[in-house]
């Protein structure tokens, strides 16, 4: 029998949604002078270690949670001073849009450029001071159910198991954490979230979810090139026809900039490598002018959930809720998910606290959440942006962009119809016979780099002697089907070089270098055969991002 601990609320994941929920729960409890036990488990070695975002943060949610966050020292130090939007025509040329032509949702006055990792570290300090127990280095690996089918809590993974499943010297059995309510705040494509969707059929009434892969680097640049508060967005080159996505470059504090590319995972060309697209993107004069002479400090990648309003699942089920990007609360018209994730956590916290305060012992489904959600600014905001993503998918970046301009600026997102996009991303990939190979330029070691030296900068590490956390349902598929049809695309979409097909005398062999994994979840999303399942490795493993 595993040991167990009892809490009022257990939260899985210390991202903005989980931390905001925890803070809001304790604030209410302290105000009502009621004892409440809340704990958060976080798979990263510390809070923030697995957080990778842009990030331009809209302060709407944090204003509500901590109205005096400025005096409290929240690390939102760089207000946006200038917005620039580009369309890249080729590797040299680009058009800069005049401000008037930019959809309103892409304006950033009043927002802040920040490291979401650092914001989470700060939120965790506040949560601990309010009395929340935070356990970094522990992954929730399993959902526990009551006999009546309601969620009872989670179990943390066993530690100290060898590659072949034996107990090592350091073996420690996982623990059961029981709660009246469990909040799943794992972020995009949470692995427990995925099984909750199935268990409770949460997406029965919603459109297919869509995803993007964001790859990001942090750079130190020469002081004379640094313009704190400058925000640059754009799309077009190097992404070819049939591939949508966009890049960003933000000037943060301390002579640092962040640059990144988000590639929609609905892409069709099996030869596409998001990593190499990003590497060559940095040679475009618009980015190069800032990065040249600088030094790359960190690298990482993370998927984003971008289906928006139409793809939102039911967020409640007996004994728990899905919050943040685990349910897909990101506003794709703004490419912002932080304030919405936080708000969803705060709304969940209100519903949960009210129930517990009224003597509820869990097990029930918090129907009341839906009303709170529907009467919140969060709902209104997501609804207004509902056509943005599907328009881009349907009409391409140019025409879709025009549609979005009209929809967002002239009709304020209130056009009386809704666009739907119901083909899952993994089903979009086409055969290698439909495309020519893409020749990516060799990295120059100054602006562009190879995958391995990039992964090195993510500080990722997994205890080597443990079971592989990337599970293949069918061991043969990578070579028997994915290889002939798509030249096994995992070799290219994985931003960490985890998957390799090695030519051996006996024929090609599929190899998984799981210790390089960045926990971005792309393989779980994009594998055309849906044959790869990402499960939690031993807690504490994975990237150690600094201020990402």
């Amino acid at each position, binding site marked *: 029998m595993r040991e167990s601990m009892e809490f009022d609320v257990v939260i899985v994941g210390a991202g903005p949604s989980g931390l905001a929920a925890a803070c809001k729960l304790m604030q209410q409890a302290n105000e009502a002078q009621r004892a409440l036990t809340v704990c958060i488990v976080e798979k990263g*070695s510390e809070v923030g*270690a697995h957080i990778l975002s842009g990030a331009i943060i809209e302060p709407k949610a944090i204003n509500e949670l901590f109205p005096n966050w400025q005096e409290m020292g929240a690390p939102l130090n760089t207000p946006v001073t200038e917005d620039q939007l580009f369309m890249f025509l080729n590797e040299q040329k680009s058009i800069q849009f005049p401000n008037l032509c930019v959809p309103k949702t892409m304006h950033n006055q009043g927002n802040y450029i920040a490291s979401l990792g650092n914001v989470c570290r700060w939120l965790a300090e506040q949560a601990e001071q309010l009395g929340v127990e935070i356990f970094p280095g522990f992954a929730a690996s399993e959902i526990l159910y009551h006999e009546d089918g309601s969620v009872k809590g989670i179990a943390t993974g066993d530690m100290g198991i060898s590659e072949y499943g034996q107990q090592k010297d350091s073996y420690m059995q996982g623990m059961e954490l029981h709660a009246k309510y469990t909040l799943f705040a794992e972020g995009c494509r949470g692995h427990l979230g995925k099984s909750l969707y199935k268990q409770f059929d949460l997406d029965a009434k919603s459109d297919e979810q869509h995803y993007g892969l964001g790859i990001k680097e942090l750079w130190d640049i020469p002081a004379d090139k640094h313009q704190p508060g400058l925000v640059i967005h754009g799309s077009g080159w190097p992404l070819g026809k049939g591939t949508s996505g966009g890049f960003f470059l933000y000037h943060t504090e301390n002579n640092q900039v962040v640059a990144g590319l988000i590639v929609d995972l609905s892409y069709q060309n099996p030869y596409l490598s998001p990593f190499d697209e990003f590497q060559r993107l940095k040679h475009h004069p618009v980015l190069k002018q800032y990065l040249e002479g600088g030094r790359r400090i960190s690298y990482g990648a993370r998927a984003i959930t971008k289906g928006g309003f139409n793809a939102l699942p039911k967020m409640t089920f007996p004994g728990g809720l899905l919050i943040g990007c685990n349910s897909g609360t990101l506003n794709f018209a703004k490419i912002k998910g932080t304030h919405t994730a936080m708000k969803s956590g705060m709304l969940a916290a209100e519903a949960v606290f009210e129930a517990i305060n009224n003597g509820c012992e869990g097990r029930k489904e918090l129907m009341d959440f839906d009303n709170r959600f529907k009467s919140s600014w969060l709902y209104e905001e997501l609804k207004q942006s509902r056509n943005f993503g599907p328009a881009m998918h349907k009409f391409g970046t140019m025409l879709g962009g025009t549609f979005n301009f009209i929809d967002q600026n002239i009709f304020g997102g209130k056009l009386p119809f809704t666009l739907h996009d119901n083909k899952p991303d993994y089903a979009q990939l086409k055969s290698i016979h439909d495309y020519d190979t893409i020749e990516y330029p060799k990295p120059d070691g100054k602006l562009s780099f190879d995958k391995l030296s990039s992964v090195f900068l993510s500080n990722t590490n997994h205890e080597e002697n443990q079971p592989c956390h990337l599970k293949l349902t069918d061991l043969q598929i990578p070579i028997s089907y994915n290889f002939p049809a798509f030249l096994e695309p995992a070799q290219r979409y994985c931003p960490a070089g985890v998957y390799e097909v090695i030519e051996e005398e006996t024929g090609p062999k599929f190899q998984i270098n799981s210790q390089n994994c960045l926990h971005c979840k792309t393989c779980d999303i994009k594998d055309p055969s849906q044959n790869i399942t990402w499960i939690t490795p031993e807690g504490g493993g994975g990237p*150690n991002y600094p201020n990402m």
Partner: protein
Amino acid sequence: MKILVTVKRVIDYNVKARVKADNSDVDLANTKMALNPFCEIAVEEAIRLKESGAATEVVVVSIGPKACQEQIRTSLALGADRGIQIETDTMPESLNAAKLLAKVVEAEQPGLIIMGKQAIDSDNNQTGQMLAALLDMPQGTFASKVELIGEKVHVTREVDGGLQTIALNMPAIVTTDLRLNEPRYASLPNIMKAKRKPLVVQTPVDLGVEMKTHTQLVKVEAPTERQAGIKVNSIEELIEKLQNEAKVI
């Protein structure tokens, strides 16, 4: 018997150290910090001795800014009983650390002091030795095995080409090597309990130690980057390059 264990907060071994632009030091802003791995082994060894009944109490001490309380809490979660933080603004140089620790030893009177052989940030490998000298105590460095036999502690040391076992009178100082043990993970209930275990804060002034500066950090440089390799087409070309470009033959 009481065991005193020293622990240091250092940059996490998974994190790639980065030199500051002005070469003045390693840049630790926003980097993940952790318990020095050799200190973690020291804590584990002390807890095992306590579990075996050979020791009754494990006290951990750390020197540094307030943040190092995190490493003391980690040690308490692993099973140590109480903690002492000696508050300093920066990480002290080895001799100052040894002087501060000597005062703690005088006050605590432990039967055994277990330390990491070195910290992975500065790689000095000297604080244990200095402490032994200051206290005039026997020392067993680079321990790969520690046993209490009668009134003595037997320490097996990794030396060039083999193992050496020595017996020390107690109180003694032992510094740990990598193969001494495989530290356990802290369990959730123990992490919660650790938050309530006693931790006292002292200052160098409280201990009557004057922090003198003996050494000065002049410069830190990143290793020179390796040049990319080249392919040669023939043995003649290889020899030519080795002779004229690399100038090694």
